[in-house]
């Protein structure tokens, strides 16, 4: 076999390396571009009244989105309360009992597919399930939509984290005579605690920035948040409505709300990564 001259191959290799570096820089560049855009435009809108007052009518200036912040917190908490128990329990089934069985396989597969489902479809589902029978938009419908988005995320991370717990731990607890449920909840859960918290935080981070599933479930409202039984103010739909409005001061409020949401979501995401990293 004749040895091939290396020059051409080296040049191709060099070009690919350069392209790889450029791509990585482009990825980082977009992140910095977005974050700097949100910070520079949003920071001006943040002041005391932004966090304490209702939105002002256009042209008046001032005003805030305190109601939307409260509404978003309430709906995220509601969705977390519903989805975390269901997600943890179904994760336990997949990791501890179901394992390779057909039922578990079906559930795992559906969870993966549901995680990739467009969130607006889940919004349509919650609309048909809650809004139509009740006859009006409500925060409950928003909570249902967000919970549906969270369940598969919590389930899959719970399963992955429980599977990392070594079997010897289970066996020693069982050998002491503890029933299986106690072994799972008291021993396996404790061993996997950091991972479970990470999964929940990531799920919360994901849904707290969601807009599409709230558009026709929780809708939005310019009034104080009082209960989840009517249209519920929330940050993301407020951003959508205000950004599309022709009023400069509303657009300004939308940028402020964007900054709050971005900081919140990124903080949760980084916190989750940090917890996992300190443990492993």
């Amino acid at each position, binding site marked *: 076999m004749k040895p091939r001259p290396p020059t051409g191959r080296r040049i191709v290799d060099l070009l690919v390396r350069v392209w790889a570096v450029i791509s990585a820089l482009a990825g980082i560049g977009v992140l910095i571009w977005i974050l700097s855009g949100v910070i520079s435009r949003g920071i001006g809108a943040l002041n005391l009244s932004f966090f304490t007052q209702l939105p002002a009518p256009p042209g008046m200036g001032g005003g805030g989105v305190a109601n939307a912040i409260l509404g978003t917190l309430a709906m995220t908490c509601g969705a977390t309360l519903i989805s975390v128990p269901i997600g943890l329990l179904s994760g336990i089934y997949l990791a501890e009992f179901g394992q390779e069985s057909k039922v578990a396989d079906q559930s795992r597969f559906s969870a993966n597919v549901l995680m990739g489902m467009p969130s607006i479809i889940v919004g349509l589902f919650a609309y048909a399930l809650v809004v139509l029978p009740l006859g009006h938009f409500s925060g409950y419908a928003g909570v249902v939509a967000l919970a549906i988005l969270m369940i598969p995320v919590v389930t899959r991370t719970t399963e992955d984290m429980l599977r990392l717990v070594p079997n010897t731990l289970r066996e020693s607890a069982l050998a002491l005579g503890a029933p299986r*449920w106690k072994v799972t909840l008291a021993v396996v859960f404790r061993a996997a605690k950091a991972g479970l918290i990470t999964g929940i935080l990531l799920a919360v981070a994901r849904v707290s920035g969601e807009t599409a599933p709230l558009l026709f479930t929780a809708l939005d409202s310019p009034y104080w948040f009082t209960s989840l039984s009517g249209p519920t103010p929330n940050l993301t739909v407020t951003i959508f409505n205000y950004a599309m409005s022709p009023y400069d001061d509303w657009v300004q409020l939308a940028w402020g709300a964007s900054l709050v949401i971005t900081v919140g979501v990124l903080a949760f995401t980084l916190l989750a990564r940090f917890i996992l990293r300190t443990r492993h």
Partner: protein
Amino acid sequence: MAKANPATSKGDAYFTRLTAICSMIIPLLMAGIFLILVIQSWPSIKKFGFSFLFSEAWNPVTQQFGGASSIYGTLVSTLIAMVIAVPLSIAIALFLVELARPEVSKVVSTMIELLAAIPSIIYGMWGMFVFAPFMAKYVQPLLKDTLGFLPLFQGPPMGLGMLTAGIILAFMVLPFICAITRDVFQLVPNVVKESAHGMGATTWEVTYKVTIPYGLVGIIGALFLGLGRALGETMAVTFVIGNSHQIAASLFAPGNSIASTLANEFTEATEPMYISALIELGLVLFIITYLVQVVAQFLLRRMYKSWSVGL
């Protein structure tokens, strides 16, 4: 087995059943979503039949609905996104695994993953107020001057439109494709790579002829996962696509996608047929993304299974 304590075994039976019921909720939800979409869109399916998929008519006044422009916009914006995101994300994965030092790789990796954490609506805000003006001022005139002979790049450079939506979608799906491709590159055993290096192959040759063929199933799975994301992305697209129910040859022209039509019109729709037609659009999106996800899961599962057995 020795005598089991009846109290504990009973508790275990209940516990197992409870967890099994919870894990059945997820497949039931999937089936429920499909069923409800079919039921709600039935009036529209019955009235328009298959022509719904090919008709461009979208007129709430005369109650004539066809989803062609939305379906077309969904497919075209996704195609643009994939054309841009695939070479970028594979190159970034290559950078992370083969080229960068571990410390650099860790930092860059985190930053790329943060791109996935940024909410869709933030991409929308940034896209409409920052990126679209940038496109109108620099990118679109440049494309027009160089490739303007193609019908794709004609018309006024407005910033908002199909091309801008596709590019922003590319940024959004990039981290998803990149994360899995990176895992695939990392999972290829070092022995295999080192043998190729030992034969005198360059880094690119090792990647192109050894790593990529070795992990091809996984990489294709990653592409399908990204595809599924791009198809259903709502808020970012709604902000920048321009929202017009016309199919235009030019990528500069405004268009719409299934998700953006739903986001824009659903709360305004009052007539039952209008709502039903919108939900039928949702059903179409559900079916497309479901099929894409099934392919992605099938490929990824095959890869992980064959690797855990084969090695």
